[in-house]
């Protein structure tokens, strides 16, 4: 269970407040207008930005002061999710051993996860030798071996075409959701939310609303979100 307790964020003139609970195992779409603070919220949960006030709790433990790597959190950014000079297998192996000296068992795990995301045999390639969709799969593979219970997706598939993006979302829901992990994903597209999200959290007007069931929020959006969504 993720709890944002009286959280207040500020960056220059920008301010955002959040006080809510996300149930463990939920898949939550984070929606709202550009510049509303969706990415900033994820940055605070991931530990890249310190809040002005309030706490971030996971399973009752305060993680507000922990550095990013020590949190029970994995994150995929919009871009730069892979180091271009490392092979795909090395990129994935980083989640197991940051020094990249893998044991035989760990190397096997990397091979297994490559098969699971459909990249069997491509472990020795560099990211540039892969298509955009394959790169997304490689980044997802690293989340799978990292075993962190909370996964943040900051529009990592935004550059993919609609069909490929839907495919990646399904793969995320199936692999990550299937393991009971909690998923927070930023999206602009209500279709993405309807596709895999159980709940929607609106980030709008300087506030983050508590997650509510997807169909309910999208069918009867609150006024601020309605203006953003327009007519579906």
């Amino acid at each position: 269970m993720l709890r944002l307790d009286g959280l207040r964020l500020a960056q220059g003139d920008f301010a955002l407040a959040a006080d809510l609970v996300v149930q463990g195992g939920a898949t939550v779409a984070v929606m709202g207008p550009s510049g509303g603070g969706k990415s900033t919220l994820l940055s605070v949960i991931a530990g890249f930005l310190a809040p002005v006030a309030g706490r971030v709790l996971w399973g009752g433990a305060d993680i507000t002061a922990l550095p990013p790597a020590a949190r029970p959190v994995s994150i995929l950014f919009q871009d730069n999710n892979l180091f271009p000079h490392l092979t795909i297998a090395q990129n994935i192996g980083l989640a197991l051993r940051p020094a990249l000296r893998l044991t035989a068992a760990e190397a096997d795990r990397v091979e297994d996860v490559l098969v699971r995301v459909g990249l069997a045999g491509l472990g020795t390639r560099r990211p540039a030798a892969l298509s955009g969709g394959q790169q997304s799969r490689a980044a997802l593979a690293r989340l799978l071996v990292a075993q962190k219970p909370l996964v943040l997706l900051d529009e990592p598939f935004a550059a993919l075409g609609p069909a490929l993006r839907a495919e990646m979302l399904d793969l995320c829901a199936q692999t990550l959701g299937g393991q009971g992990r909690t998923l927070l994903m930023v999206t602009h597209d209500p279709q993405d939310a309807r596709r895999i999200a159980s709940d929607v959290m609106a980030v709008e007007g300087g506030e983050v609303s508590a997650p509510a069931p997807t169909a309910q929020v999208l069918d009867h959006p609150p006024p601020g979100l309605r203006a953003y969504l327009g007519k579906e």
Partner: protein
Amino acid sequence: MARGPVAIGAPFARWPGTAAAVLVLALTLGTLAAVLWRAGGVGWAAGDWQVVRFTILQAALSAALSVTLAIPVARALARRRFPGRGLLITLLGAPFILPVIVAVLGLLAIFGRGGLVNAGLGALGLPPLSIYGLHGVVLAHVFFNLPLAVRLILQGWAAIPAERFRLAASLGLPVGRLLERPMLRAVVPGAAMVIFLICLTSFAVALTLGGGPRATTVELAIYQALRFDFDLGRAALLAAVQFGLCALAALAVWGLAVPDRMGAGLDRVAERWDGAGRPERLADALAITLAALFLLAPLAMVVARGLPGLAELPPSVWRAAARSVVIALASAGLAVALALALALRGGVRATLAGALPLAASSLVLGTGLFLLLHPWVNPATLALPVTALVNAVMSLPFALRVLAPAVARIEAGHGRLADALGLTGWRRLRLVTLPRLRGPLGFAGGLAAALSIGDLGVIALFAGPQTETLPLAMYRLMGAYRMEAAAGAALLLLALALGLFWLMDRGGRGDAAA
């Protein structure tokens, strides 16, 4: 996104950068203090005001001439396309790594007593010109800095959006008054000030083409005070004066807009609709031809005269060349290590420490090191290590200028992912920073090696016959009027400087799979 003050610590330990900054501080200001302390007081010779005046005069003239001549060349390069344009622009970067003494020999072959120009004048029955003195010093400085000025000003041209030229053309507006003059007003003072700063600390040019009471720079006066009078007090005071002059010039540079010297985009030619007339085309062709001739003819002479001289090189010159290569490699490694430590630490203090050597006197630096070390170590064994260390410190500002922006780019692009994966310190360096930094590391190392191998500075003070470097051996051959052998040594030095740069730069670019 700004980093939070709480959640993330610095990705790298700060102590290596701090240690590097302290070392640079000790080597620049500390050595000056050591010289002062040993001198027990400062002395100011009667002619020293003359020296300061000459230093400022020659630097000002060199800067003014370089930018004035650079403007038509840069304009021509900005608005003309022709085969070899890219190669010419690349060549404009070469004088930076060209050993000064080699260029001087090339200039002597053109403008010297037995040079081509005087041969032509003699054939016409005109009196010969002398290259020695103020005009010779300025000529050599223009040779080195005209290309730099062209590149800086060309960047100003390249920065004017192509749409502006299109708009001006469609409205029939004068491009020169509307677009070019404001750009030049913004760019030229900064370019001139950078060149002024570079020429302030000139040594090897003044040593070979200047000299005498009326053509001595501060750095050359320091050399004379140390070598002929062993007058530490005077040397220290002159070094302090040089620090002051450079600091003032550096402040002026800071206040002016200087385009990024390493910036890209020079290959682009904006579509232009002006300057299509015959006179303009002729003027541009003339500017480019004259500039290319001025820059390439001396180098061609070095090659032409050097080839037969290679066979005449005494074995001692080859040994000197081997010594020079070792010094250059050691010095490049050290310069890059220091620059990397400073770049990873970042911050104003690291930046300032990295710029400090620009104002330092390498001769005082070397002398201070000797004074500090000679109670413990036999001075004869010190000449080469001290030279390598001094060269490393002197090329540090350029290496840092290459590495610091590259490190910042890597952190901007991959820092968050590295943080998320818990890559810090040595692991982050090994897995992320160093592999991504290969190109800039090779380039910086190549610059430092070329600068070091061509340097005729501190070694001229302390070298015995067993510790001669190649530039010094060449200088001594010139002094003994063994011009054939000197030309051979010049060609060898030229090949080594360009070769080392090319090898290191190439090594950094290899395996560019990312």
